[in-house]
């Protein structure tokens, strides 16, 4: 890394931090965090006495780790996708293109901002969850350590793909169809709300190609007692495979994202921003 790049990365970290603090202070984002957390906790509370079939575990104990995993995978793909699509249209990106090493700073800022943004969305569910439901974390210190690496690796495996998605969608309005829909389907089949074994065989295979399933599995392996692994595919937490799959997605993401981002940046121009503005004004009318 050259000195100028290092300088831009430092500015990007500051940018990400500033955006994070601004987001925490924004009533809009606060409402988002609170509503997501409340919805999840109410859902778990209503089902608090259900036993999970074939085990002695309560529903919230199994569902909460899975939901955290899904939130992670969903949040860091859709979040950056929307942000990037929007900032391509509103001129944020063009401003950075006009700066020396600006794109490096911008991308760093995005990575930092969306990584940090994960903290409140997980903590607002996890902390009240620990108070509301007994026996949530049975792994102790080792469990927390597992949680930490699953979060970090899960982040690395998915966040670059959120950036790729944001870079290739034609417009902000299309993030819903191109991004939200497939990701929701993926989340649906990834064993978050129902065990993956309940699906058709080919769908199980599809689910296991994508990182969402593995992040959920890793989360359960962090929180649940070892005995609960019998309920999983193959009767094991498959920790080695989890690491391998998530690492593969990370490497692929790190190979693809910079290329796609460079291509997107090359195409940025004032007229493109102007066209998006016209389109958006039409949208409002």
């Amino acid at each position, binding site marked *: 890394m050259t000195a*100028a790049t290092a*300088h831009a990365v430092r500015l990007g970290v*500051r940018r990400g931090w500033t955006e994070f603090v601004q987001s925490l202070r924004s009533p809009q984002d606060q409402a988002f965090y609170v509503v997501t957390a409340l919805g999840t906790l109410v859902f778990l509370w209503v089902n608090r006495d259900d036993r999970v079939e074939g085990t002695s575990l309560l529903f919230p104990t199994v569902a909460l780790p899975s939901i955290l995993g899904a939130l992670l995978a969903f949040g860091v793909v859709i979040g950056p996708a929307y942000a990037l699509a929007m900032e391509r249209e509103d001129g944020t990106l*063009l401003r950075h*293109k006009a700066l*020396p090493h600006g794109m490096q*700073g911008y991308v760093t800022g995005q990575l930092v901002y969306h990584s940090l943004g994960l903290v409140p969305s997980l903590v607002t569910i996890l902390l009240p969850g620990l108070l509301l439901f007994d026996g949530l974390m049975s792994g102790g210190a080792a469990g927390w350590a597992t949680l930490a690496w699953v979060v970090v690796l899960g982040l690395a495996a998915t966040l670059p793909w959120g950036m790729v998605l944001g870079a290739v969608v034609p417009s902000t309005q299309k993030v819903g169809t191109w991004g939200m829909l497939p990701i929701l389907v993926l989340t649906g089949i990834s064993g978050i709300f129902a065990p993956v074994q309940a699906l058709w065989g080919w769908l199980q295979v599809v689910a296991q190609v994508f990182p969402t399933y593995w992040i959920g599995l890793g989360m359960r392996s962090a929180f649940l007692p070892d005995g609960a692994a019998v309920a999983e595919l193959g009767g094991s937490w498959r920790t080695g495979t989890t690491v391998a799959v998530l690492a593969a997605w990370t490497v692929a993401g790190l190979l693809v994202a910079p290329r796609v981002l460079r291509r997107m940046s090359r195409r940025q121009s*004032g*007229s493109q921003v102007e066209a998006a503005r016209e389109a958006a004004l039409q949208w409002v009318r």
Partner: protein
Amino acid sequence: MPRSAPLPDDPVIEVRGLRMTYGSTEVLAGVDLTVAPGEVVCLLGPNGAGKTTTIEVLEGFRLRSGGDVRVLGVDPAEGGDDWRARVGVVLQSWRDHARWTPRRLLTQLGGYYEPYSTPQRPRPYPVEDLLETVGLTDAADRRIVTLSGGMRRRLDVAVGIIGRPDLLFLDEPTAGFDPQARRDFHDLVHRLSDLEGTSILLTTHDLAEAERLADRILILAGGRIVADGSADELTRRVAGSSEVRWSIGGERFVHATADPTPFVRRLFEQHGDAVADLEVHRASLEDTYIAMVGRQGAGAEAPRPLAGSVR
């Protein structure tokens, strides 16, 4: 930092035969233009003439179809970060950085120029001075989303000049300004060019603005530069460039002439004090503009040899 700095007298912008085609549409059909160091040049032209395209090619935001382009001695298509640091671009943004404040945003974006600071040209511009310069000191800590349109544009200008650029591009900088904001902006451009020696290329629709700001005016029409000169030179180039109006016994007359003085003398010789309501108007830049752009339009529709004879 080693860089092949062009000699001080080399043009900051040199364009020869710039062409731009989209599919089968030719937007630029061989544009030639030169901007000298410290010069303020204004690009005028009707909508769709290719002003924005030209500027975007020079900014390095758009790849050209053909022609030779040098900006600060470098082909903008290959301009690296060192080149970027010397070029300022005022963008027409609209809702970006809504949660930021002007002070925070300028501090953040200015930071990128720190590695390019030299004793002769310290970079970036100090944020407080810049806020003062563009008149945003009082709004420095307001969220950008709450700024008025005029304030936003001034912030855009501040972002464009924070790196103390050697060359500044402004694409329709005063669109949507009220007269006071426009006046303030013109003062700012004068200050930049006089005090900082910044070369400036701007586009506008406003002819009065072009006349006030520019050392030289280029008129772009039909994908070519059809006129190049100071406002004075351009007006003189239009034949019958003055208009004399008068009335005799309540009847009004108008006469167009290249040389109003002898005409008016003869008028008095003939009619003496009966000449009333006498007015002599030099052709305005607007007349020139309409004449030049109109001529181009007629030329574009007529067969080529005819277009030649019209000129």
